[in-house]
């Protein structure tokens, strides 16, 4: 459940436009995918790591729903748990508690063999470090073919060539990663992630090491994948370019989803299309929500707040009168 809090429009001239790659169409999927194949549901997801004698709670009951075919960005400060979430969704990690459903797979209940199959067929992953997305001793073509070999698929070579052409690297088939630029490596990584037609594509800061132009190209490719193949795309990012271009941005704070920003295009009175941002605070099952920090600091909210139900909304008031509130909101 979300609560609208703010709206904004995308009218920042400094943000470069997403560039669509002049490539061939991505084509259609060859495998049948149910309508909700790419749906992601996380309920009360918890992940606890033990590091030496310390227990680190990376996720503290995270709730998230991503519709099939949706493209969202996940943002958050360092250590907020976003990469942990992505690893769980990618089948690389197992939640300590809670539930994570991806394309109908309950990730907490998969056997080892089922998890391996899940990683092969259901998700594709793209990581931040460009060089580490690819096996250094294989060419671009061989890297893309590898997941198909693991899955035992047929017509591997042809499909791999098609994928690489799609991402604009048709002339780099025999190049090893050390002969590719960062952007080219990421494009190969995307092709690798798409090799077995996954329902979900997960990208962990895919543009983190790239310049803005290249980052824009990569994002454009991801958007095309989402639009043309209907693949659900989840991008963890710090990049404002990316987070401000997707339909929904989910912010994670302290291991939970705190806010969501939804963007939509609406027709203004003057006939111009404009992008409207709406920010929502996320309400969990227990009815808890995280107020945006800016709001908290602006009103000096601390410890307790007053609530008042007024017709169709809830008002939140500071506990103490304005003139009695200490600076910074602390007693």
């Amino acid at each position, binding site marked *: 459940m979300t609560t609208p809090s703010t709206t904004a429009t995308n009218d920042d001239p400094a943000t470069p436009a997403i560039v669509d790659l002049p490539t061939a169409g991505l084509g259609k999927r060859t495998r049948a995918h149910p309508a909700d194949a790419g749906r992601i549901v996380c309920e009360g997801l918890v992940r606890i790591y033990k590091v030496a004698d310390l227990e680190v709670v990376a996720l503290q009951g995270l709730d998230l729903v991503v519709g099939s075919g949706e493209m969202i960005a996940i943002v958050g400060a360092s250590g907020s748990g976003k990469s942990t979430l992505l690893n769980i969704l990618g089948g690389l990690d197992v939640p300590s508690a809670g539930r994570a459903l991806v394309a109908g797979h309950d990730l907490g209940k998969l056997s080892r063999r089922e998890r391996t199959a899940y*990683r092969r067929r259901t998700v594709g992953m793209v990581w931040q470090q460009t060089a580490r997305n690819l096996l250094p001793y294989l060419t671009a073509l061989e890297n893309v073919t590898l997941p198909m070999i693991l899955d035992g698929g047929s017509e591997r070579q042809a499909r791999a060539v098609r994928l690489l052409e799609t991402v604009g690297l048709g002339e780099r088939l025999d190049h090893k990663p050390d002969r590719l630029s960062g952007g080219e490596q990421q494009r190969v990584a995307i092709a690798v992630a798409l090799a077995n037609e996954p329902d979900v594509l997960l990208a962990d800061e895919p543009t983190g090491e790239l310049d803005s132009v290249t980052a824009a190209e990569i994002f454009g490719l991801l958007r095309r994948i989402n639009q043309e193949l209907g693949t659900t795309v989840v991008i963890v990012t710090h990049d404002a370019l990316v987070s401000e271009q997707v339909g929904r941005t989910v912010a994670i704070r302290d291991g939970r989803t705190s806010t969501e920003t939804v963007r939509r295009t609406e027709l203004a009175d003057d006939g111009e299309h404009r992008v409207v941002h709406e920010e929502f605070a996320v309400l969990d099952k227990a009815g808890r929500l995280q107020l945006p920090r800016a709001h908290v600091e602006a009103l000096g909210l601390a410890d307790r707040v007053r609530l008042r139900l007024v017709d169709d909304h809830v008002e939140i008031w500071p506990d103490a009168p304005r003139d009695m509130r200490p600076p910074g909101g602390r007693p």
Partner: protein
Amino acid sequence: MAWLVASLRRLRDERSSTIALGLLVFATAFVFAVTPRLFEHIADGAVQTQLREASSFDRDIQLIETRRIDGTTDDPLGGVDQVGASLQAQLPASVQALISDRNVLVDSLRWTVAKTTADPSFMRFRVQPDVDAHLGYVAGHPPTGEVRQIPNPFDASGKSPPIPVFQVALSRTAATAIGASLGDIVPLTPDPTDSLVGRLVVEGGGDLVAGAEIVGLYDVTDPADPFWMDDAAFVGPSYRGTLLTRLVDVTAVLSPDAYPSLLDETASLGSPTRYTWRYRVAPDRVQANDTGRLLVDLRRLESTFPATNGRTTGTTLRSGLLPLMETWTVRWGSATTLLGVIAVGPIVVAIAALAMVVLLVVARRRPSLALSRGRGASTAQVVGSSIAEGLLVTIPAAVVAVAASVLLVPAGSPGTSIVAAFAIAFATTLLMVLAMLPTAVAAPRGPGRESVGGRRTSTRRLILEGFVVLLAIAGAYLLRERGVHSVASVGSTPASDPLIAAVPALAGVAAGLILVRLLPLPIRFLGRLAGRRRDLVPVLAMRRASGGGSAGAVLLVLMAATAIAAFSLTTLLHFDQAADEVAWQQVGADYHVGGGLAVLPSDLDPATIPEVKASAGVFAVRATLEARRLPLDLVAIDMSDLAAVVAGTPGDPDIPPELLTPTVPAGSGYPVIVSDVFGEGTQALHVGDTFTLPVEARTLTFRIVDMRPRYPGLPEDVPFVVASRDQLRADRTDGFRTNSAFYVRADDSPATAAAIRAGVRDAAPFAVVDSRAERTADLRTSPIIDAIVLGVALAGLLAAAYAAISISAALALAGTAQAVEVAHLRTMGLTRREAFGLVIVEHGPTIVIGFVAGLVFGVLLFGVVQPGLGLDRLVGSTLEIPVSLGLDQVAAIAAFAIAIAALGIGLGAYLQRRAIPVSAIRRGFE
């Protein structure tokens, strides 16, 4: 299959590490493959050398029959040869295979020289084919087969039948000994004390008389010629003796053509003739691998042909080949056991090195493996690709190693080499799989998601380590008490128990575990000391060292290598000291002149030889302690002269003062030193007790003043009674005058030894001159000792090489993080020199601790297990040698340890060459 092909493409990309691993596997497989071949080759050489150096009497086989075999004029010895061939055919196959040729001696009965001679003299005729080719006639000619008859010189009446006169040849010294000259006819009568005569029944009464016409005088061209088989009968006279008289025996050359006449002329006596067929054993035909079968056949031979025991019927065997082979087998078995124990150390270090390098190779591949798992590779696929990769690298290396070992050392079958080489290949592949298994089995975490933080040692691991330590202590106790030989080997060829032989390696592991646990203590102490300084380098270095990292691995490997070096060097030193002390024990002085229990000529006095500084005479006689039926040697020594011979040398027997007085109070018994065996059993004697011995028809009373396990110059396995000849002579002026041996003092140069031998040979050609220096050299340089030295040297070299590889791999494994740290420090201004200093100071304490611990452990381990290693079999004595290590040996081991550490650290630093700051920092963020 496609997955395998894709994963194996990694080899194409990582050529350097693949080649390095392949080379290491090749080198290790080669060492493991060639070592058994090398030692098989050495074993062949050792057994052949041992046989070659043994006397012909010991090495060759003699079959003896006492009977009459007819001969014809045309082919006098044809029948004898046939019997010899027939007997040879009865030898077991493995023994027959060793025989290179055969000859025969035909000995007549012993004749008494029936004329006046200086000493009672006796003559035996001997027919030996081809003997003339080995004699140098100085007068006359070789005898022919002509036998003429002359009147009996003892019967003036002429009624007795004529006597046969045989043509003979004598050596010049033999002729002189019996007072004969060229052309003399020596009258002979059968010696009734000869076993061949004892059953004579003389028909018609009277003694048979024969004559020996001396037609030729000769010198033996080369007494050492193998033709003689160490039989000096033709060289000159030999002597027998009693307390009062000396008897002279000479052997006369009789022509084979005279053999039929000899049979005819002695037919009336019914006297048999002694036939000795000599079968020469060719040492080059003996193979170490066949000694087991040979021993079985030799024992069977002894049951087929019993040894000479005074009987004169049937075929008897005379050969020292069985005890020679048994001794060699025992000694070689002990040598291989010792080498097996020493070899376990380098094997463990080699496997540790392989493991370290494999870890290094796998560590570099772990990100790729993790990525493959993240992309959906199953555990089985990852494990399968590792196995395929491992076999692809290691099998060709093993094949090449086997081929190289077979080409280099052709000895023996390649089976063992193949097994050894492929064992290394499979072991390396297994190590690769095990190293990679955690990544293959664990849930993939994606790139850059390595587990962080330290791990505490679990209780389970502590319990396991404690168990290993206890096991090692128990094993060391068993090894010391029971020895390294298996129970099944008691009474037969010793075979080592592999479990017991592995105890030193287990003890090393246990010591290493304890050391690794204790290492942080001195490091922390040094860290605190370093913290008081203002210098950055020692502080940082100690902080890095106390943080763990590669220190434990470096310490273990260095300690192992140093311990191997210390153990090996202590072993060699032990042999060196043992050779010297055993030689003194066996010879008793600088030289020992003796003829066994035969009496030496009265005119032999070594003191007259210019090179001799002092000598002491010895009289020895066999006796029996009747109360216990204990055979022993009674040895009477000129104690007054002995002090001059052995004073100040290790051969000084520390004579009790009671033996040094010129006379003995009447009735108190002659003071003697006796064997420890006197104090054993139900009728044990003790110091102060008296006993009597019947010696040459006299009963002498002796009083025990000392009991010892051994006495210098006397055999260790024969009980002895050592008395003062001066005291015995004081009471018995007519006895103990002949000499059985002499202890001689002189310098140990080869020229002196040759001069002494020449001087002794003139008077007593059959005497044996034993040089203590030569005995020491023999013990030090025997093929078996050479093999041990080679094995020890190889073990040390291998341990050093593999230790260096292990250390460099361990440093490289820990290197990436350290390289980043150093790179960061260098961006802050740390110089290259200081960075190098960091490495030195960080590893310095570990090197010192590893060296000291290894040295102490190696020497201690030798001291603890040495009684169980069977080293006494190798040196041929149970003499206890103290364990010691000199300062120069310690320095050598220190240099060895430093060289290993330097090489390892240098290699590791080279592998860590990412310390270019920018590159290292950039990579550190990956």
